[in-house]
């Protein structure tokens, strides 16, 4: 039976046990802490599992409204018709089997004083440490005309699931000779190279099925991750099918009009046949409710423990945190989840946390059998994570065999991270 203990009870328990020279098993039972994790994506699920593996006596609760997780990595392949959405979906059964309590509810309020999280159904969960891994939400105020209703007409497909399938259907319905526009926000945003991977795979779909069509990128940035690799691949594979209007060419999108499917930039209007608009982003809503997000919309953290700089005993991992040099990605969220778990285990035991060293890897598939990658290592430096040596990017000039091998490695990476997180 699990009797909820307050922190004071636990502390008194340890003191009493110590004076009575208690048997170690009692000491362990009494010192077990309660950790609540909000958000069951690559960050939250990895963190919950790592906590349970590090100390089976910890009481771990994972609050996540979706019964099935849909992965963003590889969802661009779903859009391009190269993969079924089912291959992206994972359940929480194995986490439950690990002894993690999975609550299929949205977290709605957080009381940092009482250390309690309330779910949508009213249930309250007390914690010693809270981990927020809420991912992103869209910053609709930053893009006039865009909201949830608009996303049904001009899909973002930036949270995998129904939106992914909607964009795929729109591509399938588009006549040959049409234009697909992709509007890309400035950083920070989730998975910075992903819009360019998407442009590539949409071009692949069009080249195969609707060869007179075009991809138009309206970009809020001048330069982007792995740009030379992408641009070389585009030229090689798709000729002039992909056109990009960068920030300094007037590519920044300032508003949209869903009634006419118009994308308005600082210097022009575009009415594409398919409008994939990725809005500006910020930390998931619950981070704001917890007062863990600052004026940027993201969450400042201590990079050693991932503890919020704004609220005590709350840790923020994944896309929602201000990670400095670490790009917001599934690999980074997973690595952060594990490092955060290690820090929490130490903090609950009264030990000093170790300094984490994180590795992030990012694969991009620009056509079936054509991939490249970026790997980076990161360590705390002051208030943020800084990239340290040991990172690598695929060479710009490389034979197709290497691109094919990297595409295979990408698939293997996906199998590994999803098995590690959900399997």
């Amino acid at each position, binding site marked *: 039976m699990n009797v909820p203990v307050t922190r004071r009870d636990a502390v008194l328990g340890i003191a009493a046990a110590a004076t009575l020279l208690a048997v170690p098993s009692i000491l362990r039972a009494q010192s077990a802490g309660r950790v609540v994790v909000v958000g069951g994506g690559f960050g939250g699920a990895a963190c919950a599992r790592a906590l349970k593996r590090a100390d089976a006596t910890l009481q771990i609760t994972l609050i996540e409204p979706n019964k099935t997780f849909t992965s963003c990595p590889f969802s661009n392949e779903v859009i391009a018709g190269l993969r079924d959405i089912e291959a992206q979906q994972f359940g929480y059964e194995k986490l439950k089997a690990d002894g993690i309590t999975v609550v299929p509810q949205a977290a709605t309020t957080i009381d940092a004083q009482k250390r309690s999280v309330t779910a949508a159904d009213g249930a309250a969960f007390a914690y010693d440490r809270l981990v927020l891994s809420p991912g992103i939400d869209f910053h609709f105020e930053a893009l006039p005309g865009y909201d949830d209703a608009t996303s049904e007409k001009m899909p973002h497909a930036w949270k995998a699931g129904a939106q992914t399938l909607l964009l795929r259907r729109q591509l399938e319905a588009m006549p040959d000779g049409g234009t697909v526009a992709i509007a890309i926000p400035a950083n920070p945003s989730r998975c910075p190279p992903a819009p360019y991977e998407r442009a590539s795979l949409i071009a692949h779909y069009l080249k195969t099925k609707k060869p007179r069509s075009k991809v138009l990128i309206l970009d809020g940035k*001048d330069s982007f991750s792995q740009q030379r690799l992408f641009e070389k691949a585009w030229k090689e594979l798709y000729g002039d099918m992909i056109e990009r209007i960068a920030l*300094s*060419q*007037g590519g920044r999108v300032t508003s949209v009009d869903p009634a006419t499917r118009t994308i308005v930039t*600082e*210097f*022009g209007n575009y009415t594409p046949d398919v409008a994939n608009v990725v809005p500006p982003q910020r930390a998931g809503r619950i981070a704001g409710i917890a007062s863990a997000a600052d004026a940027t919309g993201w969450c400042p953290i201590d990079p050693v423990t991932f503890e919020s700089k704004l609220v005590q005993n709350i840790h923020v991992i994944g896309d929602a945190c201000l990670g400095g040099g670490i790009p917001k990605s599934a690999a980074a969220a997973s690595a952060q989840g594990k490092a955060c778990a290690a820090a929490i285990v130490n903090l609950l035991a009264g030990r000093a946390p170790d300094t984490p060293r994180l590795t992030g890897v990012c694969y991009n598939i620009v056509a079936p059998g054509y991939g490249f990658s970026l790997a980076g290592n990161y360590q705390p430096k002051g208030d943020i994570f800084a990239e340290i040596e040991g990172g690598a990017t695929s060479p710009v000039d490389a034979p197709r065999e290497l691109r094919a091998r990297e595409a295979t490695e990408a698939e293997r990476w996906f199998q590994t991270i999803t098995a590690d997180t959900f399997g």
Partner: protein
Amino acid sequence: MAALINVPAKARRGDVIEIRTLTSHIMETGFRHTADGALVPRDIITSFMCRYNGTEIFRADLFPAIAANPYLSFFTVAKESGKFEFEWIGDNGYSSSASAMITVE
């Protein structure tokens, strides 16, 4: 690409309108050195001007701290139909111009 201009094609008399301009320019500060230590000479736009039917309505001086591809946006009152003329002047005899028409009703 020379310059991008955004002037409303139409406006009502008395409307406050926004004008946006963006021009491609390296805006080399003159403070940077090459790998072998040589100073990279300054190459910036130093001045921007906008005329509305011949009358100067906006002017800006630009300095080395301004980033490449300077973007300037400003407001004016739509008084009469006619022409906006834009001019950028810079180091090494740099000069560039553009224009846009407006109909005021």
